[in-house]
């Protein structure tokens, strides 16, 4: 990852829901940091409102959500809905965790940009972001 760090893409990473499985999100946070992005990790047990608060305060362009408890069909769309309420739908939402394929289709229809499931190489996530934000990290 030799690219010069450019600071203008900020990503708020958040654990929504009640589960404490934060290894994945921390590994992803670190990989994105290493790829040059600025990452703000909110910690565990964030409500959709808290996540959107953080994203607005931080002027983030991206929200990355992680959830392993199965509540993704409720909580991921709730974040998108909260962004809509606050007129902030320009913020891109992506997620990761144990999410079955059919749910991914539905989540995308509901406005979640991408879902990464277990076993995804970190490189793929970085590539996806580069594609979404070609002007730099």
């Amino acid at each position, binding site marked *: 990852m030799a690219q010069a760090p450019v600071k203008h893409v900020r990503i708020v990473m958040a654990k929504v829901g*009640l589960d404490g499985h*934060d290894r994945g999100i921390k590994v992803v946070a*670190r*990989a994105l940091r290493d790829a040059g992005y600025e*990452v703000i990790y909110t910690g565990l047990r964030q409500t959709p409102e808290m996540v959107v608060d953080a994203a607005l305060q931080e002027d983030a362009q991206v929200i990355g959500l992680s959830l392993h408890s*199965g509540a993704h069909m409720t909580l991921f769309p*709730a974040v998108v809905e909260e962004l809509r309420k606050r007129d902030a739908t320009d913020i891109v939402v992506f997620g990761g965790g144990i999410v079955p394929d059919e749910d991914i289709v539905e989540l995308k229809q509901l406005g979640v940009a991408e879902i990464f499931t277990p076993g995804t190489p970190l490189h793929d996530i970085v590539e996806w972001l580069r594609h979404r934000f070609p002007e730099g990290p």
Partner: protein
Amino acid sequence: MTVRHSLSGTELEPLYTSEHLSDLHEELPGQYPYTRGIHPSGYRGRLWTMRQFSGFATAEQTNQRYKSMLANGQTGLSVAFDMPTLMGQDSDAPTSRGEIGHCGVAIDSLADMETLFGGIPLGDVSTSMTINSPAAILLCMYMGVAEKQGVPFSRLEGTLQNDILKEFIAQKEYIFPPEPSLRLVVDSIEYCMKEAPRWNTVSISGYHIREAGSTAAQELAFTLADGFAYVDACIERGLEVDDFAPRLSFFFDAHIDFFEEIAKFRAARRIWARHMRERYGAQDERSWKLRFHTQTAGVSLTAQQPELNIARTAIEALAAVMGGTQSLHTNAMDEVLALPTDRAARIALRTQQMIAHETGVANSVDPLGGSYLVEHLTQRMETRPRRTSSESTLSAAWSRRSRRASCRWRSPTPPSASSRSFEAGRRIVVGVNGFTSDDDDGELEILRIPLSLEREQVERVQEVRGRREQARAARALDQVRRAAASPRENLMPQHPRGRARLLHGGRDHGSHGGRVRPLHREGNNLDEGFRMTTELRRPCTPSGGPAAPVLAYEATAARAPVLAADPPAGAPGHRIPRRHSESLI
């Protein structure tokens, strides 16, 4: 020749001979220090308990699954609770939204617990309950059901996970701060010593530590250190070691590196036995014997070609059996996608039955005893945790007196060596970064938890709350509150069975019930957020030495008071911003 490493990063020789064994004493199974097993006859006397962890949706649906699994030859029950239950929340709490019945069964009240065990005689079955922060309360509910069935507590067999220390280290389902949490654990140990002597009071768990990214040696080090912390706490309470230690049990992960895992189990027994006898002066042999449950490694399962997980699980289960486990859960192939379907759960159980009845591995005790490789790995595994443990005693392995939870192992955040080698393609995971198929997803049917269930469970809890006697409920909660304020009082008898009908969600969200203050924000940095950029913005080591190139935790002072936690020596500073800390509860 290229260097080869175990999954945990141990360098391996191409060949092991007697020269690799520094001092191999002839030791027999059933003899101190029990490297070769705690029973002289191994599994000939009794097979391990096949205990499939299970729970989903409502108490009624889970009850049906239990009955079906028992009818299929499962020999013990193991309850998986949903997230709100694990966090001591009622199903109608706003933060329970979306979580109800998803990763376990929703239990809000004694009424739910009665449904869960309806038609299952608690005197004849052993039950394990994976519950930690509210463990004491769920135990009371279980006892409430037993009482109703007319089963005396002295006949109750089973295990309460009740291991709060690993929650702070790895799983993070804590509610109260360390000290009062530990008090609840000791209270339940003391209570069961007298009232339910066949009940395993704590299942000291390495599983979660391993799944959160530790190595095998770290799993051992932190788990055993937690075990010793409970022993210390009980002794401090004035209990005799031989009165409670025989009822402490363990829970380990069986990962995919076959020989390393077997060595880990063998070393665990040896270390525990030596400490219990030599350090704590335990006289009763039962205090020396480390008994453990094993679960195959969830983290080793792959979403790609999920049927391959059957094979992975079989290999891991075989390691657990060769390591002498007392009970075993085999993961279902679809657990990487959702909770298991009936069919997947049955295949997982059948895998254990094949190992038990077809392979012949249960015929002779400790079949790998004397193997140069396994004995060598066992020796290494014994010395490694000792080193890890002493290095990390202050920072990680739990100093009881430290109210601050600076208790995680060194580097949970950066990817482990094994995931780095996976990313770099040096470690192949079949179906993921090697031997992939285009049509790998197949048509695996998965268990769906309908969202309508949420409404039903919310109605159920509100109904129970509506019909209970409010004045009695308030009095009972008040009594618990007073007992909690008096440090010499054991809280367990304050949760008598009748009162278990109270909702366990003391953390109420309305006008009902009492409120248990969620104290865990104070002095606890484990679930706080941080900001990461490519620069280290300030030196991170307390000594002013070179900053560990791991993470820059930048305190965003504008909105976050800085925690004054003691950073472990050499680790990055823990001055982590407490973002949104007020509203986090």
